[in-house]
């Protein structure tokens, strides 16, 4: 049996999660200091991939990165094509997982007692130091939970990936795509093996997440966090 879909899925999800973590944190930190209808619109755009059908996300990405798309043209000029390549799986998974990271990290940062942030400011700390040394360490448990959720979502990504990255065995064929094509080719047994692997990984991740959240909850209670 060809195990490449497992490695492709893991590599894609890990990369997508890393990107989401950095971009998601930056976005929520940036968003925290803003209010008004403009900011609400930004929120809407950030969260949109969560509710749109993955095919819509995939199609929009295809328009953006395609041969005639604005980003596609730019990339062709430097000799890179995204569509139907491994980076395409990462891009699709990142866009789809991003809202989860954004929502959970925002919630985690908002839970930090604002007096602690203000105290740090009166002590002369720059906004970056306030974020790195006060907000982030205190919001970290929630952010880690978001990261796990993100990874699980990236692992399960199918629709947008298929549209942007296609199904190239050994290059863009992730587990969900392998399942789809196995079923289509009447290879029930192969589909079942991949299903079992996917369910197994997700279950382990989600159990770990709940165990972690619970342990953190007890820890914070002991610490007397607000």
């Amino acid at each position, binding site marked *: 049996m060809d195990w490449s879909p497992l490695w492709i899925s893991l590599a894609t999800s890990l990369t997508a999660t890393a990107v989401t973590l950095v971009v998601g944190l930056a976005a929520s930190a940036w968003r925290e200091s803003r209010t008004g209808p403009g900011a609400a619109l930004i929120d809407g755009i950030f969260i949109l991939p969560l509710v749109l059908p993955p095919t819509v996300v995939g199609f929009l990405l295809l328009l953006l990165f395609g041969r005639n798309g604005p980003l596609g043209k730019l990339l062709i000029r430097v000799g890179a094509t995204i569509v139907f390549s491994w980076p395409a799986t990462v891009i699709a998974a990142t866009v789809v997982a991003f809202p989860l990271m954004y929502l959970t990290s925002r919630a985690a940062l908002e839970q930090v007692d604002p*007096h*602690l942030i*203000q105290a740090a400011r*009166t*002590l002369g700390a*720059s906004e970056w130091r306030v974020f790195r040394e006060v907000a982030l360490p*205190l919001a970290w448990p929630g952010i880690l939970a978001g990261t796990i959720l993100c990874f699980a979502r990236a692992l399960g990504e199918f629709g947008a990936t298929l549209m942007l990255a296609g199904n190239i065995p050994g290059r863009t064929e992730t587990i969900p795509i392998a399942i789809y094509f196995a079923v289509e080719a009447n290879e029930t047994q192969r589909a079942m093996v991949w299903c079992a692997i996917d369910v197994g990984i997700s279950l382990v991740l989600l159990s770990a997440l709940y165990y972690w959240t619970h342990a953190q909850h007890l820890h914070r209670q*002991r610490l*007397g966090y607000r």
Partner: protein
Amino acid sequence: MPLEIQIEKKLADFALDVSFRADDGPLSILGASGAGKTMLLRCIAGLERPGRGRIALNERILFDSEQKIAVAARGRRIGLLFQNYALFPHRTVAENIAFGLHSLPPADRTLRITALIASTHLAGLEQRYPRELSGGEQQRAALARALAIEPEALLLDEPLAALDTHLRSQVEAQLQETFAAYRRPSLLVTHNIEEAYRLGEQLLVLSRGRIAAFGAKEEIFRHPPNAEVARLTGCKNISRARPNADGTIEALDWDCQLSARDASGKSPKYIGIRAHHIDFPDPSSEVISGRNVFPCWLVRRSETPFRITLFLSFVAPHGESSEYHLQAEVFKQKWRHFRDLPQPWRVQLAPESLFLMPD
């Protein structure tokens, strides 16, 4: 002047509108909850932006709406002590104090921390986390952290409110020690009259966003400038007043004529006397016809361990009426001398204890 403040800021149901100059040394800001005290501190610290006005600290402009200057909180060098202390829960006491000393060389930082630990009596607790400290220790750690940046002014928001009664006197002693050593403007917000008096050298009374009184605390307590300040500084007996042609004062709510020393020279509208200034002349003495001596009846009373509050009426009580004119406070030893005497008792409102207020 070290700290000059002149700001306006709209709040939910009134506007904060204050203008004053604070000297070096502690200034108590007294006011009821929701009078705008905390907002005032937050504006000075740079955590809130006033609608308009000007804030200057040692000639350095921190905020000026006309010149469009608004120094960020991190650049103000003002120590703010939060009501809930706001210690960083993930940092030890030493790390909390070190937070503001980021830019110092490590050797200097250690020296400064050691000195602060000593002056706030936190020795031995350096490596503890805030959760492992008592309320009083957390308070001192927060104080040390605020003082670490060598602030040009110190702001304290209800520093004793979150503490149990038995800890208060201990923390109050620490604050007095700190104020004795830290001779820069220190604004201390409280709604506790006695705390305000004990800790502040000067007093500012804030009422619905406005300054009702500002000056030497002794003077404000001895002679409140208006009825509002009298009430806020704990005066329980205030009556509307009208001057008579013969120089006496008619107390309209108490229905009696009083002789009083009028210092202001303005036509008085209110007259007041503090509960513990009301005197009960010795019944065996012959001074029955002393000045401002009236017969009175006890309506009800309320006891604390050492003192008793008597609610007195100038007219004989009839039926179930619990209306009273005066509230007097006496030590129990004194109360024992006249508690069993037949009523009416005699009460004296000594002229030197009465104060007149123009509004």
